[in-house]
Structures are given as C-alpha cells and as structure tokens.
C-alpha cells in the first residue's frame, strides 16, 4: 500500500517537473522567436519611419524607429515628383504591365494545364516532360535571342516583350502548379459532363475553372507580385523614362537625386512595397498554402 502511494507521488512529482520544464522551454522559445521577428522586421520599420522624417533627421535619429516629434510628410510629394517624369506614370505603367501579365498567365497556363491534366492525346507525356525541363532552364540562355527577336519585331521600348510571353504560358511554373491542382478534382465530374454531351471546352470553362479558384488566385497573385518586382525585364526592354516601371524609377532615383534626397527615395521605396504588402495582408493564407504545397521559390 505504501509503495503504491509512494509510486503515485513520484509519478506526480515527475509530471510536475516535466510540466515546469515544458513551460520554461515554451517561454524561452517565444522569447527567441519574438527577438528574431523584431530583428527581421526592424529594417522595414526603419525604412517606414525614415520616410516620415525631415531630411536632416534621417541619419541623426540613430536606430530609433519611433516617429520624430512631428510627422513630416514632405518626403512623399518630393519623391513623387523627384524625376522629370512623376512616379504616378511609373505606377500606372507597372499596374498595366502587371495586370495584363496576370490575365495572360492565368489564361494560357490554365489552358495548358487542363490539356496536361485531363485530355488524352498522343505525346502528352513527352510534352509534359519538356515543360518540366523548361522549369530548370536559366533565363540567360534564351535572353539574347529573345532580345534580337523582339528588336526585329520593333517591340523594344514597348511593353510587349514583357506581356506577350505571359500570354504564351512562358512561365511554365504556373502550368505545373495548376496541373497539380486539377489532378485533385474528381474525374467523375467531367465524365458526368461528357455523358451529357459536354465537349472539352465546356468542361474546362464550366467545371474546372469554377472549381479551381484557389489555385487561379494563387497564380494571379504571384504573377502580379513577380511582375511588379521584376527589374531585369524592364531594364533591358524599356529605355524611355515615360515607359519606366516603379522598379526602374527607383533605380534611376538612386543614380540621379538619391544621394542627396534620401527621404524622397525612402518614401518612394515604401510606396513601391505597398501593393505587395496589401496582398500579403489579405491573402497570406493563400500564399503560404501555395508555397507549402508546391515549393515555390519565394
């Protein structure tokens, strides 16, 4: 009897100490994670705070991210009109290119993905393998011939080299993403539709697309962000200031006035991140799931 009681107390003591250990571990882990979060987000907060400081305070405020005594919004209009062409034009250009890219990418990639996932035709496996190969291809290999091609077509210094490839499903990664999703949709649905006399187009349009809104949204958002961020494409294809995207405008800002006007540069940097941040705010679950299931690059 006594031994039983002893054993019982030993067990509870053991339990209590384990619970204590777990509690301590949890506190330490949270402290670590909070510290890491602050460290990681600090540069972003500093950028935001600096954009609201008067020019002469930016580098005298030390590491503080608290706003100065008075909020100073001057940097924004100064940066907005800091180049011969205003940032309003650059934002408009970026939006046009990004939105057209989204439309092209979602349309062309979903068509191709439907063929790979659902249609039977000779050579399907071969072409699918070819598509996967292009995923690994460094873009530098096609860069120069593509440039020569677009030059001969008279497309350099227009938005066409940045947009038309999206309508031709050149970003094969999204085909792959959609094939994975389409394969998860029950086949019975399109078989039933085929019994009712629906052709491939109707199945694609009336069944697959409506059931695939999550993957279509993920593809749309990532296309928007990647196009918005793209620096290399606009750098080689656009040379007129009035055609510049936001990213090119920022680069030009650092070259010309950036050395003297940090406030304006920081303000425009903040504005350039706003669209991406909004997507993050409202669609982060979709973005994170998209990455988790397919292993997207960023």
């Amino acid at each position, binding site marked *: 009897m006594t031994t039983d009681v002893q054993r019982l107390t030993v067990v509870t003591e053991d339990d209590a100490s384990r619970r204590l250990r777990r509690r301590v571990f949890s506190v330490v882990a949270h402290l670590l994670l909070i510290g890491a979060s602050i460290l*990681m987000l600090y540069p972003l907060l500093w950028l935001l705070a600096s954009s609201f400081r008067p020019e002469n305070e930016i580098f005298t405020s030390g590491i503080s991210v608290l706003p100065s005594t008075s909020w100073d919004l001057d940097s924004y209009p100064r940066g907005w009109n800091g180049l011969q062409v205003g940032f309003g034009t650059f934002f408009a250009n970026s939006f046009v290119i990004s939105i057209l890219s989204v439309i092209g990418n979602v349309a062309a990639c979903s068509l191709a993905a439907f063929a*790979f996932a659902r249609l039977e035709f000779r050579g399907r496996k071969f072409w699918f393998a070819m598509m996967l190969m292009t995923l690994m291809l460094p873009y530098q*290999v096609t860069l*120069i*011939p593509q440039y*020569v091609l677009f030059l001969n077509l008279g497309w350099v210094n227009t938005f066409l080299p940045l947009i038309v490839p999206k309508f031709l*499903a050149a970003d094969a990664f999204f085909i792959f993403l959609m094939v994975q999703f389409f394969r998860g949709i029950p086949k019975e649905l399109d078989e039933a539709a085929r019994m009712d006399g629906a052709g491939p187009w109707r199945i694609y349009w009336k069944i697959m697309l409506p059931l695939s809104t999550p993957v279509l949204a993920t593809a749309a958002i990532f296309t928007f962000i990647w196009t918005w961020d793209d*620096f290399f494409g606009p750098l080689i294809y656009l040379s007129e200031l009035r055609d510049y995207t936001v990213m090119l405008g920022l680069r030009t800002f650092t070259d010309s006035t950036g050395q003297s006007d940090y406030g304006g540069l920081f303000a425009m940097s903040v504005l350039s991140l706003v669209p991406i941040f909004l997507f993050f705010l409202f669609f982060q679950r979709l973005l994170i799931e998209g*990455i988790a299931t397919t292993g997207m690059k*960023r």
Partner: protein
Amino acid sequence: MTAQSISASARIKGGAVGSSIWSRAWENHAPGYLFLLPWFIGFFGLTIGPIITSLYLSFTHFDLLTAPRWAGLDNYIRMFTNDRNFVASMRVTMFFVIFSVPLKLAFALGVALLLNRGMRGLPLYRALFYLPSLLGASVAIAILWRQIFAGDGLVNQFLALFGIVGPSWISNPNYSLWTLIVLSIWQFGSPMIIFLAGLRSIPQDMYEAASLEGASKWRVFWKITLPMLTPVVFFNAIIQTIEGFKSFTPAFIISGGTGSPINSTLFYTLYLYNEAFSFFRMGYASALAWVLLAIVAVFTAFSFFTSKFWVHYDD
C-alpha cells in the same frame, strides 16, 4: 421521313461505323493540341528556337548591329584562358551559393523545428518570417540594404551604441558580398514554410512508437525527423541553389551595376548582363549563358545522382 431526318440518321450511322481514322484521330487528339497551342507557340518561339540560336551565337562575334561573324571556339577559349572577370564572377557566385544556401536552409529548418513543437501563435510567426521573402526581391529592399550597411547606416548606428566603429560594409570588398549573403538569409521564410509542411506530413505514429520505446529527443530527431525530411531538404537545396546562380537585382543595385568594389559583387549574371547590354558582346555573353546552363545541369544531375545515397523515399 423528311430529307433532313434521313441525312441526320445517316450521319449518326456514319459516325458510329464508317468514320475515317483521320476524323477519329482528330476528335481524340486535336483538343489536347488546341488547348496547348499558346504554350506551343511560346515553347518553340521563345524557348527552343532561342536555345538553338543562343548556342549558335556562342560560336560567333555579334554586336547586334552587324551580322554575326563565325568565331569557332574563340569565345570559350578566351573565357577559360584569358578573362579575369570571368574567373572573378565565377568565384563570387560560387562563394555566394556555398555560403548563402546552407545558412539560409539551416535557419529555415531551425525555426521550422521550433515552430512545429505546437507553439502558440504559429500562424503569426509564420507570417512575420515569411514577409521578407515576399518583399525581398524588390529594388526597394536592395536600396534599403545599401543604406543599412552603409558607413553611417543602421548597422553601424547600432554598433556605435557599444562604442564600436564599424566599417562601410558596402564599399569594403571584404564585406560587400557578405551583405548580400545576409540579404539572402533574411529571406529564409519560404523554405521554412516548405519545411513546416514537410514536418507536418511525417506520420505521428512513428513518434508514438519511438516514445513508447523511450527514445531520447535527440535520437528521435536523427532517426526519424531528419531522414523523413530529406526529400524536402533536397528539394529546397536544389531550388535555392538554382535561384542563387540566377540572382541579379540586389548585386546590381548595391554595386550600381558594376560589381564594385573591386569586382567583389560581380555576380555571374551581372557580368553577363554587362557583356551583352553595356558592351554589346552578344556572342561572348551567349557563351557565358551556355557555361551557366552547363553548370546548372551538371549540378542538378550530380544532386540527383547523390540523392540516392542520402534522400529517404517511401518504398
């Protein structure tokens, strides 16, 4: 029977019995090819055609204005025997990949393991750690980085609190590449999310069995978690390495497009860009691109070959 219905019934009969092989082949295979049509145009016009052209151009001298002149192996010979910038850019890129990829993946895995222990607030932490990955490719972040590591930048302001006078990290060739490596590690969020998904897919009963046998946590990690996670490690390593080889924007912005100071941030892609679009040596740049393709291909093949020995796949 009207003429119309006769012809209709004939059509049905014909469709069932006598339709030619050709029309049946058309019905079976045409939709697939029609749906793929945009992709086919892109595949041949923007990928296959340019790949072949690029290979041809790599054996020529080509300045964009006059027709390409055949040069045989000149470009490749010059690259490997008489081009210090090629050697420098190769060394910079290799250094970047060798240090940034393992460090980034180590951070990603470490944080993922910590978060996976049923931490409260996981969605919040996950989102916060992911934010830099989402923003990191932007020119704005490269500009910010240049400021953080400048002589009077945020890092040195912080060090000054402890009386340390830091160097100008960006303009010192000993440190400039490291600022870019730090920028890459800062974006560990997306491999972390992939690790978290991988951790969640490890069957729980394996852990239960291990704890019944009284295995220590350390042993459980080495014998269960890590082996089960090797496919994800492998996947992340390949993706991040290829991304590392292709990295361009940060080095371009931070060095003002030149790879300075003293070529210490002359990434391979930056060198290639300058050869092609600053000096219009398109033939030479094509040869550089093909060497890059060869490196990526050899690396990928090598990884897949060695993966047999360390990546655990379900039987």
